[in-house]
């Protein structure tokens, strides 16, 4: 399940809803991305996430589908926000549920790594010294690229 929204979400409530009625789940992995006030550089006042409506939903659905092709998941959820947020605000939630923990943990990592480089979102930061677009990180490409090959069977 994927959702692209401007408003905040409650991770605990989302996880509860995702698991309702499922008894074959042994492990639930989740990741929450949060607006971070970097300790280096000028203090962050706010961050605005722009996205490409339509394509965002398509890419998130495709990424989720790929995770479900690679791992045997009981349920999965991606929520990604757009709009203006301040340090400490939640940006993204990824949840994966599976019979065994390894499948849940690996697929959660996969989803967030792929999402970083494939979902059409762009961050603009407002700091004490002005505004700027955040540049893509090479390490995010590296993290996404390691999933180009299939995961080891377990």
């Amino acid at each position, binding site marked *: 399940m994927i959702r692209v929204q401007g408003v905040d979400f409650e991770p605990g409530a989302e996880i509860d809803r995702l698991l309702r009625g499922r008894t074959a789940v042994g492990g639930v992995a989740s990741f929450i991305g949060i607006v971070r006030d970097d300790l280096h550089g000028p203090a962050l006042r706010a961050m605005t996430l722009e996205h490409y409506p339509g*394509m965002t939903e398509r890419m998130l659905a495709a990424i989720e589908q790929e995770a479900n092709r690679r791992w045997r998941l009981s349920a999965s959820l991606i929520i990604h926000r757009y709009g203006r947020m301040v340090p400490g605000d939640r940006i*993204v939630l990824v949840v994966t549920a599976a019979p065994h923990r390894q499948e849940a943990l690996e697929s959660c990592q996969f989803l967030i790594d792929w999402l970083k480089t494939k979902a059409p979102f762009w961050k603009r930061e407002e700091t004490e010294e002005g505004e700027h677009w955040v540049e893509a990180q090479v390490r995010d490409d590296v993290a996404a690229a390691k999933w180009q090959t299939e995961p080891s069977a377990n």
Partner: protein
Amino acid sequence: MEVLYFAWVRDRVGTAREQVDPPESVSTVGELARWLASRSNGHAAAFRDCELLRAAVNQEHVPFGHPVAAGDEVAFFPPMTGG
């Protein structure tokens, strides 16, 4: 053909989307980018270094050699920074 711009590409071009009608010689994303660059100083600034840009045709990521045709939705944007 509808062209969309995001993030600093939009800032430089000065608009988020525009309807364009390129000549028939424009048959790929890369050729479209070169043609768009000639439309204004803003466009020129946005497309100055195409290696910094990514493109999508009909909401699918594509390389700059990908074909474009009338009726397509083409988007140009910097590498993504979501998550």
